[in-house]
């Protein structure tokens, strides 16, 4: 049963019942048997639910609910005592019910104190100030309407005055606590809201009773005060029954929003109420604690000013943090409106452009820093891609742009454009740009280095290789067997060294993007024919047959690739197949048209590749066996280059193999689009630099 009513559906039913009960209480004739019955049921329901929640709630919330249980129990005790006293004629003021009622506040304070302590840990200056403002306002109003009349009342003796004063003073304390609870609220849960409503209803009932006491200490409470109490009891029961009761004392996760409109409005009322009361007092010249009120007004105004100062400094601080973040960024960040005028420019942007903030902000960025093309001619705003992106609200990455510094010099930039969207509407763009001149210089240095290395390696290699080949061919006269063997060895290894230099340079140029692919429309069948023709000498020497299986109609085999590079790839794959094939075996090269690709397969019947090495054959120096490169005269880079070329051409390369039965390398290439602007079919012209 304890767990049952915390199911959301049961809980909604409970809320409905409670509202119906309160309405019934309002409608029913006061003090009738039905009224008493419903009131009693409400009290019992509240006690049972509070007791159940207190037992089952987690440790953090348990203290809160036990305190609330005690508070309700004592309150009901006081009410019962009042009824008993009234029925036995022992009424009067003050009496035992008043004492019990005063004592009932103690657990209420403990419960709310625990709640505040658990829920709002840490230092919360704004909450303190806001609570103080509202509390001082409350003190002023209480002092004026409740406390002053009681102290001035001639009907009360000393003891009665103390008891009569205890009610509004305790209520004031309860109100201050409630205010604290509300102003510190992070995300209010149902349980927290209902608890606050319950305390507020109790407080209202008390205040009306206090007012009634001021008028006539001996009079009993009006009927609607009882309705308020019943509603307070019902709200407390619902709070305890709500699904969020268990988490009521969990620490507030978020930082409460300090400047919501309702909150600021409430604070404004709190701030204005006190001077208004003071003004009213002075105007009517009625007696009252005017000095006290004036003091309250001053305190409230000081607190309000402090609060405003905190609000302003918070905003300023947030702005400083934002600026600091932007200024700490290494990239230039510039905010533009839809017309391309600069809204803000961070430190890096100003430094790179040698501009002060005033040189940029409020001016059109294009006119300041992007108005000239590399050749010095004006760059029209309408042709500028940065400018068009500002209005279109698209994201883009721009390269090959030049920005102009304030002193007229220019530097190459890369730009990232992102739209500036406020509530779904494109209001401009943020561009972040980076000076890439250093990187371009580094690229140039690297390019020169590679060119020099290439030259410096190839020149001695030319002499070594050439001399050995001349010796080997017997141009300078016959060699004896030992000499011939040594020279052959030297020739083979100088060949390998030459290939290695070529492959390393190829890879470097592929990596650095300096081997631009020049795609053209070529026929895959022709590519295969040419590769086979180019390598048939080596195949013949190894006693291996090369077979091209191509469809009769080659019309579907047109692909869009760089013919020189693809020739290099196919020659490499065929060369590998020859190396790893047995003498007298066969290598098949096939080409088939697929939906949007042409598949080229080169299948050998060689020794195959072990399964665990299939994944790495395309890696650099990823040969199946460490000694392969040496023994077979390869470099270990051929397949890496092949993969690089094929993937950069928009194709794929893969391998399937069965150990001992052979391997099949498959290359897919993008077909030539008929609407392709690449132009007419280009003859596949193999270049000498095959691997």
């Amino acid at each position, binding site marked *: 049963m304890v767990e049952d009513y915390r199911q959301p559906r049961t809980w909604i039913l409970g809320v409905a019942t409670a509202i119906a009960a309160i309405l019934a209480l309002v409608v029913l004739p006061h003090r009738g048997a039905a009224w008493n019955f419903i009131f009693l049921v409400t009290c019992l329901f509240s006690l049972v639910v509070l007791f159940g929640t207190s037992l089952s709630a987690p440790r953090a919330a348990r203290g809160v609910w036990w305190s609330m249980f005690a508070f309700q129990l004592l309150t009901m005790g006081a009410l019962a005592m009042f009824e008993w006293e009234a029925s036995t004629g022992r009424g009067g003021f003050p009496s035992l019910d008043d004492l019990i009622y005063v004592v009932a506040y103690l657990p209420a304070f403990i419960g709310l104190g625990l709640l505040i302590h658990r829920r709002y840990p840490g230092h919360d200056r704004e909450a303190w100030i806001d609570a103080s403002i509202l509390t001082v306002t409350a003190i002023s109003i209480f002092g004026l309407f409740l406390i002053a009349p009681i102290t001035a009342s001639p009907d009360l003796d000393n003891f009665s005055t103390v008891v009569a004063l205890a009610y509004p003073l305790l209520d004031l304390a309860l109100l201050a606590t409630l205010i604290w609870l509300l102003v510190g609220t992070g995300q209010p849960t149902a349980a927290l809201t209902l608890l606050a409503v319950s305390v507020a209803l109790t407080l209202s009932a008390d205040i009306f009773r206090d007012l009634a006491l001021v008028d006539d200490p001996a009079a009993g409470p009006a009927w609607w005060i009882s309705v308020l109490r019943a509603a307070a009891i019902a709200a407390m029961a619902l709070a305890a029954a709500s699904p969020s009761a268990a988490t009521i004392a969990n620490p507030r996760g978020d930082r409460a929003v300090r400047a919501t409109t309702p909150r600021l409005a409430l604070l404004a009322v709190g701030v204005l109420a006190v001077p208004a009361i003071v003004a009213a007092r002075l105007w009517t010249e009625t007696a009252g604690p005017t000095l006290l009120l004036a003091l309250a007004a001053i305190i409230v105004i000081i607190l309000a000013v402090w609060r405003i100062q905190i609000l302003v400094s918070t905003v300023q601080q947030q702005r400083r943090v934002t600026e600091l973040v932007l200024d700490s960024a290494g990239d230039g960040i510039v905010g533009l409106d839809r017309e391309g005028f600069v809204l803000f420019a961070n430190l890096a942007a100003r430094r790179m452009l040698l501009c002060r903030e005033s040189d940029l902000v409020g001016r059109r960025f294009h006119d300041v820093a992007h108005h000239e093309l590399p050749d010095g001619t004006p760059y029209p705003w309408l042709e500028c891609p940065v400018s068009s992106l500002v209005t279109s609200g698209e994201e883009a990455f721009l390269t090959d742009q030049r920005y102009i510094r304030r002193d007229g010099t220019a530097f190459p930039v890369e730009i990232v454009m992102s739209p500036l969207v406020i509530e779904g509407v494109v209001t401009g763009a943020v561009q972040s740009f980076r000076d890439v001149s250093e990187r371009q210089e580094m690229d140039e240095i690297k390019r020169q280095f*590679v*060119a020099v290395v*290439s*030259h410096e390696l*190839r*020149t*001695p*290699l*030319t*002499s070594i*290789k*050439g*001399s050995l*080949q*001349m010796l080997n*061919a017997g*141009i300078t006269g016959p060699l004896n067997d030992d000499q011939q063997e040594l020279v052959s060895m030297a020739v083979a290894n100088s060949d390998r060294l*030459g290939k290695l230099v*070529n492959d390393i*340079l*190829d890879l470097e*140029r592929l990596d650095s993007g300096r*081997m*631009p692919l020049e795609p053209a429309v070529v026929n895959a069948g022709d590519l295969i024919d040419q590769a086979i023709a180019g390598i048939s000498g080596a195949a013949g020497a190894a006693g291996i047959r090369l077979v091209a299986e191509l469809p009769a109609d080659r019309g579907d085999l047109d692909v869009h690739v760089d013919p020189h590079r693809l020739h290099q790839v196919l020659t490499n794959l065929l060369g590998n197949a020859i190396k790893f094939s047995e003498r007298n075996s066969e290598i098949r090269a096939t080409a088939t048209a697929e939906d949007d690709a042409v598949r080229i397969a080169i299948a050998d019947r060689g020794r195959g590749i072990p399964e665990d090495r299939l994944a790495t054959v395309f890696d650099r120096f990823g040969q199946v066996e460490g000694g392969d490169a040496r023994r077979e005269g390869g470099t270990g880079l051929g397949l890496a280059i092949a993969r690089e070329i094929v993937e950069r051409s928009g194709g794929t390369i893969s391998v399937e193999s069965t150990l001992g039965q052979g391997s099949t390398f498959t290359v897919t290439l993008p077909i030539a689009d008929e609407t392709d602007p690449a132009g007419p079919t280009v003859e596949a012209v193999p*270049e*000498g*630099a095959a691997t």
Partner: protein
Amino acid sequence: MSRRVLVVDDDDDVRRLATMSLSRVGGYDVRSAASGSECLAALDEEIPDVVVLDVMMPTMDGPATLDAIRARRTGYDVPVVFLTAGVGGADVDRLRALSVSGVLHKPFDPLQLPNELGEMLGW
């Protein structure tokens, strides 16, 4: 009378190897020069049937020497073939675009070099 070839290369060994290849294997009448200016001096004496010109040379590189040859009063139309250690691709295309009969690559095969040269020139 055999074809006359002028080999221009700043590297002594490469120059000697090319000379030996073209004369011993190809049977051409080969003279050599170690720089662009030596090449021009040699052209003053005699205009060969072809100039095999290294691309990367100090002070006056291949293209500069080519310009100087084309600017001569005599022998300005002598066929020129570049000999490059460059890696191909765009660089080679740029060389081909100049007024040359062809581009040979280093390292070259001295047994094939005379043939390749002859094919380029239609000999």
